[in-house]
């Protein structure tokens, strides 16, 4: 009988721990540090708001060999090889993250993406750069803004308009 009561109590405690959204309640019951992720304690999911997309604008092929153009997160531009950046509407990508104040988060961006031509073909952004700190954290208002740039490789035969998605994912740590 004593064993039976003990088992019932354990099951009940486990049930409360797993179903509780509150860390405080959880720790009163278990008396041990939480192993649950912060996200499981939070009721506010993190959201991503895209302010502007990355736009290389016009890239002029000046030689058959092609080349590359880089836009840094601060907006500065540089070009290598037979391609020049000539547009006045060049823009870095800018994103605002919103969620639980003071929460540390992880932001994942791809290291490479493909841009597909409206008339066929593709080119590649071989490097994505951001101005995120090494340990991104939402501020007191639950907000974090960052910008991203990249380096696009253009071969000598590319021509026309190209576009690609930049998948960004965010999670609480």
């Amino acid at each position, binding site marked *: 009988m004593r064993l*039976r009561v003990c088992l019932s109590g354990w099951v009940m405690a486990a049930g409360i721990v797993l179903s509780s959204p509150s860390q405080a309640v959880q720790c009163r019951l278990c008396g041990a540090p939480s192993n649950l992720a912060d996200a499981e304690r939070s009721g506010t999911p993190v959201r991503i708001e895209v302010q502007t997309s990355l736009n290389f604008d016009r890239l002029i092929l000046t030689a058959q060999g092609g080349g590359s153009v880089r836009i840094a997160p601060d907006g500065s531009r540089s070009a290598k090889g037979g391609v020049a950046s000539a547009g006045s509407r060049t823009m870095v990508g800018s994103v605002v993250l919103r969620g639980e104040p003071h929460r540390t988060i992880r932001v994942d961006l791809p290291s490479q993406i493909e841009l597909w031509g409206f008339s066929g073909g593709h080119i590649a952004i071989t490097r994505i750069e951001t101005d995120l700190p090494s340990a991104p954290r939402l501020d007191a208002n639950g907000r974090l803004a960052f910008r991203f740039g990249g380096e696009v490789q253009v071969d000598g035969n590319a021509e026309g308009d190209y576009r690609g998605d930049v998948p960004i994912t965010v999670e609480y740590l």
Partner: protein
Amino acid sequence: MDGRLGTAELDRRRIGTKWGYFSMTNFLRMAAVAATAAAAVTAAPAVAAPVGVTSGPKPTANARIIKPLTLTRVRDLDFGTIVMDSVPVGGSAVSVSTASARSCGAGLTCSGTAQSAQYNVRGTNNQVVQVFATNVSLTGSNGGSLTFTPAVPGNVTLTSSGAPGNNFDVGGSITVLPTTIDGVYSGDMEVTVDYL
């Protein structure tokens, strides 16, 4: 005891039996609750799992790759022959439209074939090109000068990549004064093109 159970004792055994059965049921129920709670935690990706853009525009990257423009002269602009009869004090204008139509001002007689200048521009198909031109000075063969004011077309939409490109015309005007020295006036037009 004679092996017969009194009423009170019988009741205890029944209760005991019921309690044992009830406890096991509770255990199963609790286990089910625990499993449900665990499943609920696992099935909450909106909070726990990495999230992407769920509303609004998705982040994209865009680039427009174009060939450099090349601009080539096809023909020169020509006002034809202008005879100064009785030019007003304020001057009289002669103009040639982009369609090579000439307009001759008061006090002047125009003859000969007039034509606009024509250029060929090549670049990237479907791109829009802007044409720019600035005033230039034409120098007379016997001295003197005339100011040439160009008239450029609107934007040009390229219909090919590279050859054959698109031709466009440039007209313009000059103002002849009573004091203008006769002679042949000529000069270089300053025309540039750029992608819009």
